[in-house]
């Protein structure tokens, strides 16, 4: 099953987004990798690496990110990861919810889950 990792500068934000996505995500493995590892705002490649390993059962991982160094640290963690992982180019919360639902489809693939996560960019709110 495709897994998810949510990367945010805030540990609380990452955990909160995981909480929202898990509500819709059934058995999908969703890991939070927020904060800089020292309890401050930031992102940390080691934390993201650990989250990738925890979320990956062999079918790959879709990574949702917020801003700036979250993208860079996620890229580095993916380079160092022993398996397939892709950053979804979409909003971090809506993308995580979409991806969590998409991953529960028995025919889901890494590509189909990324596609759904990225489709969240088109969600209109007004």
């Amino acid at each position, binding site marked *: 099953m495709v897994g998810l990792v949510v990367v945010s500068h805030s540990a609380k934000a990452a955990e909160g987004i995981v909480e929202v996505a898990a509500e819709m995500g059934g058995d999908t493995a969703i890991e939070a990798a927020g904060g800089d590892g020292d309890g401050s705002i930031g992102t940390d*490649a080691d934390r993201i690496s650990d989250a990738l390993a925890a979320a990956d059962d062999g079918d790959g991982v879709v990574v949702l990110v917020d801003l700036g160094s979250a993208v860079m640290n996620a890229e580095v963690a993916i380079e160092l990861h022993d398996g397939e992982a892709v950053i979804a180019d979409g909003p971090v919360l809506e993308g995580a919810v979409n991806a969590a639902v998409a991953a529960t489809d028995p025919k889901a693939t890494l590509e189909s889950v990324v596609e759904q996560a990225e489709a969240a960019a088109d969600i209109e709110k007004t």
Partner: protein
Amino acid sequence: MSGDAAAIVAAVEAVAERIQAERDHLTDLDSAIGDADHGGNMARGWAEAADAVADLDDPDAQTAVKTAGKTVLSEVGGAAGPLYGGSLVFASQELEGGITPETAVAFAETYLEKVQDRGDATVGDQTMVDALTPAVHTFKKSIETDDLSPLEALAKAVAAAEAGVQFTVPIRASKGRASYLGWRSVGHQDPGATSTLYIMEELLDTAADQLDSEVPDVDASSPTIPDAEAAEN
């Protein structure tokens, strides 16, 4: 330990000391345009990296560089961790055969490409790319075309990086946190370009030490006159 690896261990130690000495200056530069964490973050990360490479048991050059990069990646927060540390880890693969003029050029080029890709930055964005690009280009040309000694090539690269750091002052930031300032970023020297220069200066000093030579007093200009006809073809 091989001579190459010993040189890397000495270089990482020298970089750690230099960044520690420049810590407040880097933080001052960063507080003008960023979040004032560059000096502290880098000083902590490079100090840890110096300890990590010193603890290695008989490493080769590639392992020493990779270990320094992994430690910087883990210890330095913000974008500097992946930019400095992640790029060192990636470029270390070019040093598999040890350090020669050829592998040094390949390492420099791979490192530059990684930093550009990762930061999505190009020359003129007021980032470390402004120091790194002229340095790597000058190093490559000095080795491959001008046939200079590696030490002289590195000295020219440092002179080029220095010019690049000065170039960041009068331009507007288009990447990183400083870009949020828009025109207010003009007139400020980029902290990442500055720390890149410090690292290169320490590489040069260490290389001169290892070779028992003086640091060559050079500027970034090439000793050769381009052949216009050859260039056209």
